[in-house]
């Protein structure tokens, strides 16, 4: 029996029929607006479309009023080829090359089924990048979990890492960086943010629009199954007798092979210029792809849903519209080029089906079993969703949190105490060696990886002849952001910017992933508003526009939200990748300089975390100083004045020294600055700082550079290849063996059991 389907006609006949809009997440006024737009009640398929398109995830209804600032405060720049709003922003990196990059979250699915959740997260962001017409060339992953020793972490982390690696490795995408943090607030709310970078010629950008009446709408890639349709089953069950209704998947399984083939297929299609427009199918699947393509194009589209290739023949139209099955794309093709298009798909054994045509009717019309089931103005679903002004209120406890500054905590004084503190910090989960995770990621594939973890930023060669390349880093610190969301977001931006500059690349543009609790909590909304304002102001000052990003709300258990976590990705360009600056010390006798100023700043620091304390104010941000520092790091790499550079961030100078010594497997003799408090000098997290090593011959030129630019620079030591130890003179000495043991043991000892 074929189940009765709610048609547009039926909707007109039965205006008063009660519909399950609440179960689908629509508010009363939202449902009322749908009726007003259509001048009747929506058919159940139309209801399905509006409910997913107007969801928080797709419509950004809670965040949009704030995100506008990224546009309003956008710095003047001519590097932006495609700005916010498209699948991903596109940046002109010169030499005819364009780079697109974006970060996205897949938090909740990764909690439910860590491996598949993380895997499909990578798959989704890669399709966003591919859609712009680019070849994906690298991924980064920014991860947050509960405490290292929590059972929840033992369940989630290995699966997430295996999922990211399993999917990314199989696509042949080098993983060149990311983050890994642990904090109580992420128990039950792990954060899995994935970033993808893609490259194309500047003149071959593709856009998501269905232009040209008579052009064909082609669905290609995987077949459509009942994946991720959650709510839609409400509608389906309205039409199905239970017996007839098959069970719907609770979890989406990624098929990286299907995606890899889809990538190569699309790149061949792009190269032959066979599409007018293209869109990936992600959240809200067909509903999103059809409404957005139509809305951005000529304005109308006719779709025959019966033509959609199904994995599960029992799917109802509402479910087909909401299905989030992975590894699917939608293209708009002229009738003349269709044959060629299908031939390329055939070559790659990719299923491709014409399911509709572009019209100038201004309506999105869909039929099912020859009956009209959808007839809506696409813009109303895709672009004119609800916009909320959520109540905002500074949390009551904010003052209390900022009030206690942790001065009371016992600071290490003696040489022994300082030594122990350094080792404990180096071994602490947030600062320890991450290679147990990152060794599960292929960093070599594609043969263009110039820098990868544990370097400050990943770097990819774009062009083998000109040696032009890009560098990218993601950073974010929920502890800082909890203490001051405005400054916290800026600190994340500043660190990513600094990380990129440390490699010798010039920071150009920004992507962001904003992970917060429930927007219905005025306190959370305050954190969000402040973070966005801070980021927008910061980007304006640094001259690096936000090109796109992602908002993830409702990251909370009960009423307790995660630490507000703004993850910022900064992309930079370098004209000649052979000029890159590595992080590790090298070159016997080279001099070590500390750039920037150190203040007594421990709010949100890893030293506080070591004492289980969070309070006070985060380090101050000084963007003028960040720019100055970046300028010096870039010039110094161009002129070949420095052998290594490493930014100072969590753990301060001590941690940076540990990492640079171990990376280069070289010892160093350090003399802390005259009259400085050793504890502050070693562990403060003041920003705008970096350590560099300078060959003796280049010393005067380097000092000259810093002096003319007015950047504070202090000579703090020398590299010693003969003595394999970190020697902080007058304080303590630690052999590299002991350092390495402390730094590397933490993760394996937890997961290698």
């Amino acid at each position, binding site marked *: 029996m074929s189940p009765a389907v709610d048609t547009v006609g039926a909707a007109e006949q039965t205006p008063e029929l009660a519909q399950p809009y609440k179960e689908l997440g629509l508010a009363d006024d939202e449902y009322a607006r749908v009726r007003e737009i259509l001048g009747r009640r929506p058919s159940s398929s139309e209801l399905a479309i509006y409910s997913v398109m107007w969801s928080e995830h797709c419509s950004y209804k809670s965040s949009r009023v704030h995100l506008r600032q990224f546009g309003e405060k956008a710095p003047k720049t001519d590097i932006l080829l495609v700005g916010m709003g498209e699948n991903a922003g596109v940046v002109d990196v010169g030499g005819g090359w364009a780079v697109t990059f974006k970060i996205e979250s897949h938090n909740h699915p990764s909690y439910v089924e860590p491996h598949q959740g993380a895997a499909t997260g990578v798959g989704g962001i890669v399709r966003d990048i591919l859609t712009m017409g680019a070849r994906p060339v690298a991924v980064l992953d920014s991860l947050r979990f509960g405490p290292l020793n929590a059972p929840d972490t033992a369940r989630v982390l290995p699966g997430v890492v295996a999922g990211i690696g399993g999917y990314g490795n199989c696509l042949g995408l080098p993983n060149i960086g990311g983050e890994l943090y642990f904090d109580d607030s992420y128990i039950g709310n792990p954060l899995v943010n994935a970033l993808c970078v893609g490259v194309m010629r500047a003149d071959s950008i593709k856009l998501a629009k269905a232009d040209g009446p008579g052009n064909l709408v082609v669905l290609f890639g995987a077949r459509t199954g009942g994946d991720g349709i959650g709510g839609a089953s409400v509608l389906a069950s309205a039409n199905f007798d239970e017996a007839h209704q098959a069970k719907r*998947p609770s979890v989406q399984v990624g098929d990286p092979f299907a995606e890899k083939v889809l990538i190569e297929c699309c790149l061949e299609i792009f190269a032959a210029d066979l599409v007018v427009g293209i869109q990936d199918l992600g959240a809200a699947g067909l509903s999103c792809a059809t409404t957005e393509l139509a809305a951005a194009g000529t304005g109308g589209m006719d779709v025959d849903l019966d033509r959609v290739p199904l994995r599960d023949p029992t799917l109802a139209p509402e479910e087909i519209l909401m299905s989030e099955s992975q590894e699917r794309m939608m293209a708009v093709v002229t009738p003349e080029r269709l044959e060629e298009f299908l031939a390329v798909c055939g070559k790659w054994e990719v299923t491709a089906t014409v399911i509709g045509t572009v019209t100038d009717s201004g309506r999105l019309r869909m039929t099912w079993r020859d009956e009209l089931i959808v007839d809506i103005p696409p813009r109303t679903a895709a672009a004119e969703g609800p916009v909320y002004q959520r109540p905002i209120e500074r949390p009551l406890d904010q003052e209390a949190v900022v009030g206690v500054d942790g001065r009371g905590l016992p600071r290490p004084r003696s040489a022994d105490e300082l030594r122990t503190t350094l080792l404990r910090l180096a071994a602490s989960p947030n600062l320890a060696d991450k290679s147990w995770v990152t060794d599960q990621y292929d960093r070599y594939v594609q043969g263009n990886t110039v820098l990868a973890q544990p370097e400050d930023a990943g770097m990819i060669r774009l062009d083998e002849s000109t040696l032009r390349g890009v560098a990218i880093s993601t950073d974010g610190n929920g502890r800082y952001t909890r203490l001051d969301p405005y400054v916290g977001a800026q600190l994340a931006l500043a660190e990513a910017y600094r990380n990129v500059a440390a490699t010798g690349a010039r920071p150009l543009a920004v992507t962001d992933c904003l992970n917060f609790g429930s927007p219905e909590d005025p306190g959370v909304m305050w954190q969000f508003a402040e973070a966005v304002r801070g980021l927008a102001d910061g980007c304006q000052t640094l001259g690096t526009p936000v090109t796109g990003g992602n908002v993830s709300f409702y990251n909370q258990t009960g009423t307790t939200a995660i630490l507000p976590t703004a993850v910022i990705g900064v992309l930079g360009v370098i004209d000649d990748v052979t000029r890159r600056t590595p992080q590790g010390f090298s070159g016997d006798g080279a001099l070590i300089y500390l750039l920037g100023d150190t203040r007594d700043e421990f709010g949100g620091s890893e030293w506080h975390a070591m004492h289980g304390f969070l309070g006070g104010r985060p380090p101050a941000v000084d963007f003028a100083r960040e720019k100055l520092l970046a300028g010096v790091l870039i010039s110094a790499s161009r002129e070949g004045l420095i052998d290594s550079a490493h930014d100072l961030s969590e753990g301060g100078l001590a941690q940076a020294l540990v990492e640079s010594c171990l990376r280069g497997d070289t010892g160093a003799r350090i003399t802390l600055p005259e009259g400085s408090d050793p504890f502050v000098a070693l562990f403060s997290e003041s920003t705008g700082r970096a350590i560099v090593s300078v060959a003796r011959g280049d010393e005067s030129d380097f000092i000259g550079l810093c002096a003319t630019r007015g950047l504070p620079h202090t000579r703090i030591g020398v590299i010693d290849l003969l003595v394999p130890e970190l020697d902080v003179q007058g304080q303590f000495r630690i052999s590299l063996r002991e350092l390495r043991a402390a730094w590397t043991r933490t993760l394996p000892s937890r997961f290698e059991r």
Partner: protein
Amino acid sequence: MARVVVDVVLKPEILDPQGQAIVGALGRLGIVGVRDVRQGKHFELDVEDDLDDATVAKLADTLLANPVIENFAIRRD
């Protein structure tokens, strides 16, 4: 010593990329007459004779299968 066999299969509604890839390969092998293939895991356990079913079930449910996406069947031969 007894032999217990546990077969773990993806729930029917869950996508099985491996099975699909095999079906695709059959054509190239010139094998016709196979409509669908699902790939699962097969475990052979050597256990003490007195090991009770409850324990085996717990083992299957926690270690051998991922209950979120898989079902399992236990067989004693």
